[in-house]
């Protein structure tokens, strides 16, 4: 233990603790900006400077470790002035048109200026306006708001191993951009949106599509339906001021009804359907000598990662569409037929914890009629939160309402799709019983739960022990893919999710997602699972019924047409697009 004093408060902390964390332990707040839990410390913003008695310069508390006998002052006039000056400097090269920014009121720079009491622009603005990159379905990168904190680079590099964003140029013309100032879409971006979730300002945002939804809702000729992804029910509350990990399933349905959606359905239904199809595909591959290990396909970030970086593993990926797209396909066929209306008059919206889902919905493979998107618009949790606020709905006090039918009866297995390991657990609950023809004794497969990067488990299927693995983050996916490429993968079935923690840590989730928050959302999802009456997908009566009524049998012809897809190697788009085609400010 190291003994020191911060602002005259004596304290004793573990050796190796940074000044920032020591202060935190004793409830002393030091403002920060570039610092983000879980990411590397890069000390670039210099906002967290403090004074150490006896030293001439100031030190950054995020990177300086405590030493015995140190006396630290976090709020001397010199420190306050430095912090203020630094923040004013950031503002001098930032498009601070706060009222016209989606990050208004949730911006960390705004908050910092407020804490520091900055009430005037001491330094004149030197901002040179740059074109905005919105040439992709998921994300909008606005370099004019970028404060060069480097969080997005770090998350893209160290968490996702995708390395799309880098520093270009130096001095004041330094920029954070894809290589050579290209579009994100030209540079192998997987659209996971983790950059948008860690950006302290509004420099990388999801592409806002709420307008399209409002427009469809006011269009008399359209029947507008919405599907709600599993992970949304444990995070939307947070976006609307409730506690982290609040379970708000019934409130979401109520709010969506108030917003004016004609049908409110649950993606959990098609998650159950995915399990039936994917489970049968796995059994089929195992018994017929198909390509193994089989890998899950519900995560569009992962699919596009594999298509760009590991085309070798594309045959390993299950041909099942993701639950979102299975829903879209069924809505535009089965449900439209059932209602007796033209599928083009059906407007399918989904609310997802994800920015890559926006990209997935636009993929050419995801159109059953070959022309129109099955899912018309994808909203992130943050966008839906915004819509609910716009409508003046007091979300917290809403009564619970049930989902509409036929896509409303779901299972616990589907709910846990939102957590890393959830798809695996759900699949094993079904595959075990189908293959072994006896009930699974312990339905909670805790081996595949939790936030560890790569998890392994062994299950006995038909007398043989089968190894399975679960990975989240693309850096871990890379490890798994390298094993497969080298032919050393010991697994039969692998679940991969792009975002840390799975969908509960998705790029479209409320801001400020950290390990602690992920943990709360995870626990909430397992609570949802635990209290469900039906917890295995194959026991879902609606699923049984849809096969009887429409799909006939798993992996059947109809399934093949509606619920399965194929993948392509993603080529780098070499066409030199001129900068001036980008939307200018």
């Amino acid at each position, binding site marked *: 233990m190291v003994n020191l004093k911060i602002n005259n408060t004596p304290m004793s902390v573990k050796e190796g603790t940074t000044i920032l964390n020591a202060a935190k332990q004793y409830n002393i707040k030091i403002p920060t900006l570039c610092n983000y839990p879980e990411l590397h410390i890069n000390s*670039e913003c210099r*906002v967290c400077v403090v004074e150490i008695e006896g030293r001439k*310069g100031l030190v950054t508390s995020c*990177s300086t*470790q405590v030493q015995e006998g140190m006396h630290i002052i976090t709020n001397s006039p010199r420190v306050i002035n430095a912090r203020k000056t630094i923040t004013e400097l950031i503002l*001098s*090269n930032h498009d601070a048109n706060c009222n016209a920014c989606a990050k208004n009121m949730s911006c960390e720079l705004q908050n910092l200026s407020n804490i520091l009491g900055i009430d005037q622009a001491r330094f004149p603005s*030197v901002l040179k306006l740059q074109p905005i990159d919105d040439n992709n379905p998921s994300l909008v990168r606005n370099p004019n708001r970028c404060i060069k904190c480097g969080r997005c680079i770090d998350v893209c590099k160290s968490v996702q191993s995708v390395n799309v964003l880098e520093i270009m140029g*130096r*001095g004041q013309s330094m920029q954070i951009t894809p290589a050579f100032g290209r579009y994100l879409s030209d540079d192998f971006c997987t659209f996971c949106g983790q950059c948008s979730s860690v950006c302290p300002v509004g420099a990388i945002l999801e592409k806002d599509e709420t307008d399209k939804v409002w427009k469809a809702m006011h269009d008399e000729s359209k029947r507008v339906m919405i599907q709600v992804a599993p992970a949304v029910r444990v995070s939307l509350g947070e976006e609307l001021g409730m506690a982290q990990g609040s379970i708000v399933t019934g409130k979401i349905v109520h709010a969506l009804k108030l917003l004016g959606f004609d049908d409110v359905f649950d993606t959990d239904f098609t998650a159950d359907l995915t399990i039936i199809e994917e489970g049968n595909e796995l059994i089929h591959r195992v018994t017929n000598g198909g390509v193994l290990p089989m890998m899950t396909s519900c995560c569009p970030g992962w699919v596009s990662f594999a298509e760009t970086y590991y085309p070798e593993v594309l045959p390993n990926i299950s041909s099942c569409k993701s639950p979102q797209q299975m829903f879209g396909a069924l809505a535009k066929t089965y449900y439209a037929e059932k209602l007796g209306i033209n599928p083009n008059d059906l407007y399918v919206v989904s609310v997802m914890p994800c920015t890559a889902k926006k990209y997935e919905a636009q993929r050419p493979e995801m159109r059953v009629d070959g022309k129109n998107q099955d899912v018309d618009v994808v909203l992130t949790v943050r966008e839906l939160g915004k819509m609910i606020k716009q409508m003046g709905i007091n979300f917290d006090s809403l009564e619970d309402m049930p989902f509409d039918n036929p896509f409303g009866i779901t299972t616990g297995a589907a709910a846990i799709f939102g957590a890393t390991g959830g798809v695996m657990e759900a699949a094993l609950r079904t595959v075990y019983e189908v293959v072994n023809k006896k009930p699974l004794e312990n339905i909670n497969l805790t081996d595949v739960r939790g936030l560890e990067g790569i998890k392994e488990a062994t299950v006995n299927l038909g007398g043989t022990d089968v190894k399975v693995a679960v990975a989240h983050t693309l850096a871990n996916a890379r490890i798994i893919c390298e094993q497969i490429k080298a032919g050393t993968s010991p697994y039969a079935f692998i679940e991969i999710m792009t975002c840390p923690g799975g969908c509960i840590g998705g790029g479209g989730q409320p801001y400020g997602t950290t390990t602690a928050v992920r943990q709360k959302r995870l626990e909430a999802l397992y609570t949802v699972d635990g209290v469900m009456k039906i917890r295995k997908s194959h026991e879902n009566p609606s699923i049984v019924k849809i096969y009887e009524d429409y799909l006939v049998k798993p992996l059947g012809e109809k399934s093949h047409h509606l619920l399965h897809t194929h993948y392509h190697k993603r080529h780098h788009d070499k066409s030199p697009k001129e900068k001036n085609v980008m939307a200018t400010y």
Partner: protein
Amino acid sequence: MTEMKVISKRFGKINPVSVEEYSSMGGFAGLKKALYMERISIIEEVEKSYLRGRGGAGFPTHIKMMGLAKETNTPKYIICNADEGEPGNFKDRNIMEKDPLAIIEGMTITAFATGATEGYIYIRGEYQAAMRTMFEALENARKANYLGQNIFKTNFNFDIRIRSGAGSYVCGEEFALIESIEGRPGRTRVKPPFPTQKGVFNQPTMISNVETYANIPVIITMGGSEFRKVGTPSSAGTKLICLSGNTNNKGVFEIPFGVPIRQVIDEFGGGIKNNRKIKMVQLGGACGPIIPEYMLDMKIDYERFEEFESKTGAGAIIVMDDRFDIFEIILKTIHFFEHESCGKCVPCREGHKQLELLIRKFRDKQATMKDLDSLESLARVMHQTSLCGLGQTSPTAIISSLRYFRDDYIDRIDHPVNL
């Protein structure tokens, strides 16, 4: 007074790349002696000599050597910082072009003492001639077995490779230089860990200036205590001074520490051209302080320079006569740093532009009292909070001129309300 030629004793007298001619003038005596010494006693000799880094910061060399020697992680690296980008400095270039084998010898002794096996000389991109000389010298040293495997039939192996950047100033900063050697853009890293703990390729690394390494063979040959007899208590030995500006003579001169600046200007510089008056002198380079004529009796000495909190010790003396406007000089300086900032940390990236705008106001006589406050506060904040030496030392010209030329600032204020 004449020059005290210790480092520069072979300058112009030998073929710089010839091992024979270098040896005939005392070359490689230090290495031959060192190879039969205990490793620790080599470092102790350096400690006795109290050699301090000649790159400007003046960090005691033996502490770095000890730090590296203590590390158990191998391989260890020795880097010679020859990225002499500071305006007004050209001494390292002189050593490289006129006595490159002294640097090689110094690095080899340091490597032997610290257990390092690989070395790099990082030469400024613009120094093409120095690079060629250095390359030849390395080849010749290798042929003569002063480098490579089993140097002098001992089991000591060491070799040096040349690396170069594209001419970015900030690559002279130790971590930016290391990043550049690794093939990445020159941007500094967060300290700690320091280079001796985790340097190039994350291995223990000692990085020092060209002139520092050139001093090592001298110290080993003559002994640390003998070396320390020259100079002042805080600064032992001799120093290469780069004299430039409006003096009659310009160039590199070697002097013992403790000589007053005025003496250098008068005796080596031969006074000011056209007998004009000295308006100001900038010490160390663009990142150094600007001092007025009346301070020129100050001695060249690390301790004396410490009050400027800048890399004054590099040895440049830039003399400017009374035709020059101080604000033009500062503006040029700040513009230089604005261009050379890597952009990683906020104070340096955004601060220089604002300093430039403020200084411009003073130059154009449009400043206010408030601007004076802003300038002073901003310069200090940059000095205290920047991530690396660039942003920490670049405002020195402003901070020092605010101290010694305050009247010039007040003169430029439009309607000063209160003085």
